[in-house]
């Protein structure tokens, strides 16, 4: 009888956890704009790999990696994210080195490796907001870009243009002096 009760408990629990898992883990908020750390796998694979240990944040010298509460569903609880407007990634690549489970892949800190393998997102410019496109020379985003002329180029009057080399570190968005910001990262969560 006790064994039967145990199996009944197990069955009910399985169904309950199925329901909870579907409801919560799948409920990612569409309006939430966040980046995963550089080298992170595509979102679903990332979630299945990340063990929520918090080491990526603990080595980040810029303290830009933060951790989700319940804002992005239960599946994302305590997983790392970056909001570039608050603090952007400086591409030191330490988080990939320390990540034990490969959720953030180790990538050497070279221009080639970073431009080829890091896909956090891509910058997009809103020309109606950008000062340089409004006749006031600015160019701050270009100065902030860690991959100048690979990811971002400026033309006449410091008018920025995003190139294919952009990996979405967010330093341009962080530095944009316009509010609301004229350049922002569209996350590539895969």
């Amino acid at each position, binding site marked *: 009888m006790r064994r039967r009760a145990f199996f009944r408990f197990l069955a009910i629990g399985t169904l309950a956890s199925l329901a909870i898992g579907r409801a919560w883990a799948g409920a990612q908020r569409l309006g939430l704009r966040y980046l995963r750390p550089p080298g992170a796998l595509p979102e679903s694979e990332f979630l299945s790999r*990340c063990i929520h*240990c918090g080491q990526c944040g603990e080595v*980040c010298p810029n303290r830009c990696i933060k951790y989700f509460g319940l804002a992005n569903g239960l599946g994302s609880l305590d997983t790392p994210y970056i909001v570039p407007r608050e603090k952007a990634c400086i591409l030191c690549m330490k988080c990939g080195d*320390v990540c*034990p*489970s490969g959720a953030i892949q180790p990538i050497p800190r070279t221009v080639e490796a970073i431009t080829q393998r890091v896909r956090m997102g891509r910058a997009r410019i809103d020309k109606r907001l950008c000062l340089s496109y409004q006749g006031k020379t600015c160019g701050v985003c270009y100065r902030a870009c860690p991959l100048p002329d690979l990811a971002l180029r400026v033309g006449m009057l410091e008018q920025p243009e995003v190139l294919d080399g952009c990996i979405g570190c967010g330093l341009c968005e962080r530095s944009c002096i316009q509010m609301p910001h004229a350049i922002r990262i569209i996350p590539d969560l895969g």
Partner: protein
Amino acid sequence: MVEYRNQFALIWRHLNKVRWLILSLVFSLLVLLPFVHVYQTYLAAHAYDLLAPGERQLYDVMEALTAPFVDDPAEDLDALKGSTWSGRLFGLKLSDPLAAASQLAAGLTFYSPFLLTALIPLLATLVLGRFYCGWLCPATLLYELNTNLGILLNWFGLRTGMRRFDRRLKYAVLALGLVACTVSGSVLVATVYPPAILGREFYYAAAHGGLGVGALFFLATLLFDLLVSRRAFCRYLCPGGALYSILGRYRVLRIQRDVSACNDCTKCSAICEFDLNPLRDGFGQECNNCTACIAVCPTNALSFRWRVTDIPNQGSGHLSPRYRREQQSQGPTRGEA
């Protein structure tokens, strides 16, 4: 009376203090590491002059604490990172076997670099049993202090919870946790596993100035232990404890009772945090070799032995009429383990 020799008794008796020392060390290291990280971020920014007075104080304290151990603080301080859930010890990455198991369940893929980080803890568990729960887990320190707080409250006449549940419940929690990992595709076990929670929450508190959802959960388990059932989370619910118990079923190092020395005082069974029964040789797979029963035994009847199984119930100790009767009928060999 059979002469009873327990030559290492002096060592065994004091292991419990060593255990508390190790627990405290691990715990204080976990508290300290996030502050080391904050200090590292100040270092990386070369921003000493820009720090607020409080931050500057932190910088100075951490510099004084870490200076004896590192030559180049910017590089060398990365040697110790993470928590007991998963961490880096001087280039050696170590992970909790539960992390490996739940990640396997979540991703259904073998990623050997990660699974290998759980190998050393796994082998240690196979030999030493559930030792992690008693000797390393940062939550154990708080849970045991919580038990002591309960005893203190009892002294003042306040009643604490003494309910008992089925200890096998935690194996169901482990199974359900792994199923939930598979279904959700995320390592959800980490959100209900106290050592993983503590490792993260210390970091959140130090570096981000706030606590996460996990802190609430952990607080709830502390209250549950205090108000409903003594040490309930570890005994009845912890998925990590369940995994370690299974792995440690045939552990090689075990505590054993010597009937020829035991005087049936029941102190060992009363002190056991996991509700086991050393008094009647009922250690089982869930014993964490914490040595609390050895430390409390007045006659040194308990000691460590190399064995793969427990001795089946040996009956009551040398003071009982039954023991003497059997002694006479079976000859003097009985009781020499």
